[in-house]
């Protein structure tokens, strides 16, 4: 039977209710919380600061380091504390998703550390993390040419849906669920993150990318609003 209705009643191109807040970790140079419905990510930025040990320094430009992890109790079955292969991979693709926006060429030998923690998970955690990190980087005064916005687009059976939840990820009928996390530079619409697992035609994939771009424009408006409302750090 074709996929006609989403478990939470949303339209196919509708995002969950989003929440964003800046300055949630006072000790950090910049920080933010970003949530897609029940998925809550917190990002904290420290830097630019001297990078130790010296052999890791880049004498040509500043280095961006990202670490993503989930709290053990953020998921229904406890995740053992400590890095997993999954979290290491997500850390790396997140770094690649954010790097094109950064303008840290003049910060040779320094590092900008981005720490992302998932407080509560209901799919789209890496995208929530990227959105939180974008805000935190701006809050920290890191020079950037744009903000990065991210969303998970899914193909459930043959329907393109925006902002997948876990229940949708587990869908098995028909062609099942294909999960496509995407990130864009907000102004130019250039892609900085694209991952896929599932089963899709090339035509549907292009549809998904366009749906992602539309959703990210909406996400960018929220990110912009939240930053503009800051009076103090």
């Amino acid at each position, binding site marked *: 039977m074709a996929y006609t209705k989403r478990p939470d009643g949303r339209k196919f191109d509708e995002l969950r209710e989003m929440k964003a807040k800046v300055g949630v970790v006072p000790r950090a140079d910049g920080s933010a919380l970003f949530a897609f419905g029940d998925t809550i990510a917190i990002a904290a930025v420290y830097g*630019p600061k001297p990078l130790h040990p010296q052999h890791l320094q880049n*004498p040509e430009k500043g280095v961006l380091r990202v670490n993503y992890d989930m709290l053990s109790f953020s998921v229904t079955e406890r995740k053992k504390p400590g890095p997993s292969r999954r979290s290491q991979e997500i850390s790396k693709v997140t770094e690649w998703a954010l790097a094109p926006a950064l303008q840290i060429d003049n910060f040779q030998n*320094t590092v900008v550390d981005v720490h992302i923690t998932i407080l509560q998970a209901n799919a789209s955690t890496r995208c929530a993390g990227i959105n939180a990190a974008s805000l935190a*980087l701006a809050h920290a*005064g890191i020079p950037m*040419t744009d903000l990065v916005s991210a969303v998970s687009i899914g193909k459930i059976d043959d329907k393109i849906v925006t902002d997948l939840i876990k229940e949708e990820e587990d869908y098995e009928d028909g062609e099942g669920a294909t999960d496509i996390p995407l990130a864009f530079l907000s*102004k130019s619409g250039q892609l900085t993150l694209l991952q896929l697992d599932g089963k899709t035609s090339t035509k549907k994939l292009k549809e998904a990318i366009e749906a992602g771009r539309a959703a990210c424009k909406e996400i960018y408006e929220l990110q912009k609003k939240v930053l503009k409302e800051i009076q103090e*750090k």
Partner: protein
Amino acid sequence: MMSREEETREEFEQEDDERKEKRELVIPGEVITTGNDYLPGDWAKREGQDIIALRFGLADKSGRLIKIIPLSGTYMPRKGNVVIGKVVDITFNGWLMDIDAPYSSFLPLSECSKFVNKNDLSECYDIGDMLAIKVLGVKRKGIDLTARGKNLGKLEDGMIIKINSNKVPRVIGKEGSMINLIKKESNCDITVGQNGIIWIRGEKVEDELFAEKAILFVTEKSFIEGLTEKTKEWLETTKQQKDIKDDKADKKKAKEAK
């Protein structure tokens, strides 16, 4: 005698209460203006026809130049800045300092403010000492400092507070007006480092805490107009409350001493 603040003031522009209102809060990547009327200054960049902001802050247009005044972010050292830093290590030829900047900073032996025993540099400045120093130069590999100059060198006693370095111009005020007001009302010696590290020394604990409160008041209210007036009012009311409290405490102490 020229104070540290007066020397510092020479190195940067002052905030002008009126102009501030016209500045727009911008985010990284935001287009500030289009066309060729302006040139990009600090933290602004030309992208095709547009000039965009590279940092979160206030877009400032003066003459033909657009620059961003950052509201957040770590301190970016500039030549001539007077800063306050901590000695974190001692090498054979100088002191490694922490001035809360993106680059490591170093104070060479030759730039010490007093005579140094080459066999024991810690006699001059020891690990954990706070110094008022000046930035001589900023290079890829690090920042060069000097402790030679008026009112530079080791800081004794007093307390240290840290504020957002972007708020320093507000705390110092036009020609030092704000910081001088606070110094006078609190009866404290105060040095404001461009890196946001501030040293306060008073005769009484209460005076130092009062000065700290005043500085925090200014940093929290840095957005509003007529800040100098509002600060004056706040200082007067708070000082009255403080004097009543101090009087009571002094009387109590005198009683207990009998």
